[in-house]
């Protein structure tokens, strides 16, 4: 068993939604959630669900091969700035390698992350895809 069932269960909100921290003092947003604002240290914060909408700051096309995930490459990994201001790392899916670009508008979408062997758990989580009308021919 390579995926921890308690972990997946307890992190379900963090995996199935993009939960971010908004600081009520300095106003900045961060991901993932934390007990204090990573920018100003304030504990005057709230946890909210991100809109899931954001924009690609920059991206890389990865050919780095990991056992059991060889079929996943090439994959697009990007730094994304969410509308709420938080910067997140994520995978961009449903996009051609020639279509991915800086400034591309994306939205969060629930996708499969990993499978634990033939009979184990399937782990889902948030990835990103281009927003329809974001300048990619459909």
């Amino acid at each position, binding site marked *: 068993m390579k995926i921890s069932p308690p972990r997946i269960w307890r*992190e379900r909100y*963090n*995996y199935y939604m993009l939960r971010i921290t908004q600081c009520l003092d300095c106003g900045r947003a*961060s*991901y*993932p959630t934390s007990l204090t604002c*990573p*920018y100003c240290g304030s504990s005057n914060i709230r946890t909210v669900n991100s809109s899931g909408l954001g924009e690609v*700051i*920059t*991206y*890389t*096309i*990865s*050919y*780095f*091969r*990991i*056992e*059991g*995930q*060889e079929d*996943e490459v090439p994959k697009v*990994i*990007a*730094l994304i700035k969410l509308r709420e201001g*938080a*910067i*997140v*790392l*994520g*995978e961009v899916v449903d996009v051609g390698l020639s279509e991915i670009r800086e400034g591309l508008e994306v939205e969060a979408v629930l996708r499969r*992350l*990993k499978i634990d062997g033939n009979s184990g758990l399937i782990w889902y*989580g948030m*990835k990103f895809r281009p927003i329809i009308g974001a300048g990619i021919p459909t």
Partner: protein
Amino acid sequence: MLSSNTYIISSALIRVGRYFNKSYKDLIRELVAELNKDLPIHDYIDYVVVSNVFSDSILEQLDISTMIIQELNLTPKPAVRVEAGESSGLMALKYAHSLIKSGMTSTVLVIGVEKLVEYPTTVVNKYMVRLLNSDVEGRYDIVTVNEAALLMKLYMKKHGHSREDLTIWPIKMHENAVNNPYAQLRNRITKEQVINSQIISDPLRLFDVHPLGDGASAIVLTNNKELMSKVGTGCVELIDVLHASAPPLTHRSDLLSLPASKYLFSKLGNYGVDLSDCVLEIHDSYTILAYLIVEELGLSDRGKAPYVVTDIKNINLSGGLKARGHPVGATGVYQVAEVHRLLTSGLGSIKLNNSWGLVHSMSSIDNNAAVALIRRCG
């Protein structure tokens, strides 16, 4: 007759490589055989500090420091393992330094050891993910090489560099490694080879990435000056080992800064270190990081590092992580051993008259960083 200073009096290194036919114990036996030529370590070592990162997942071995003691018949001497990601080697050095400086012990053997090629690369790659936050990068199998690629793109765009401009570092490292008998990659490479090598994470290519290799290296630290006449090939003084952490990449206001390294470099003035009179070993796990480190060190203006690298003569004479190799938990100990050799008996044929040695490590993209300050003996 104990000194209030701590000295590195001896070092041993195995050439970094792919040792399918040797276990971690075999590599350490070779180190110890080299050290024992002067005097059996059994006679003078009080403590063993082991730096290792992947023993649990790759070797299926915990408490590896005790296994090493048993293998070497050093009982009842104590040993401990230190792990701080890619900075583990310098953290082991710091532990050893504090044991001596506190008066708790006099002579410490620091061993850095990592066996990576026990498995095919894709299996080792799986474990490399664990160096990053399992709740952030781990979830998506994002690795440091991907983050380095993102920084490389930002750097090229911000400072107007072409992909070709950034080949100067790996070419220099391979050139340096030719003279280091312990380097994994001892071949010269060309600009064309770099830019045509396999894409790992675009725009980062194979020759921008440290190779995978096994390694083992050891140094002996002591405050016992009498031991120096019996052991080793000359001493250097360990002045201090500094260590700091940084916020995760996504929380940095400037994505091209290295906050932990920068913080440590800002302390160097307190020690009177003159960078031009230093032997420098920096953590160039990926080409882009070398440029960023050179800039954080103040050896170049922001964005200009690729233009000054050729003129910096005292940096990564070992070949760096790029060409000496990066046996993860062992790397910091290699760097220190190399500086010890460079300032005393020579590393292969290379020998320097510089007064200082500065060794820099970091884990992933500067999640933590460490600096060891070394000074030529009086």
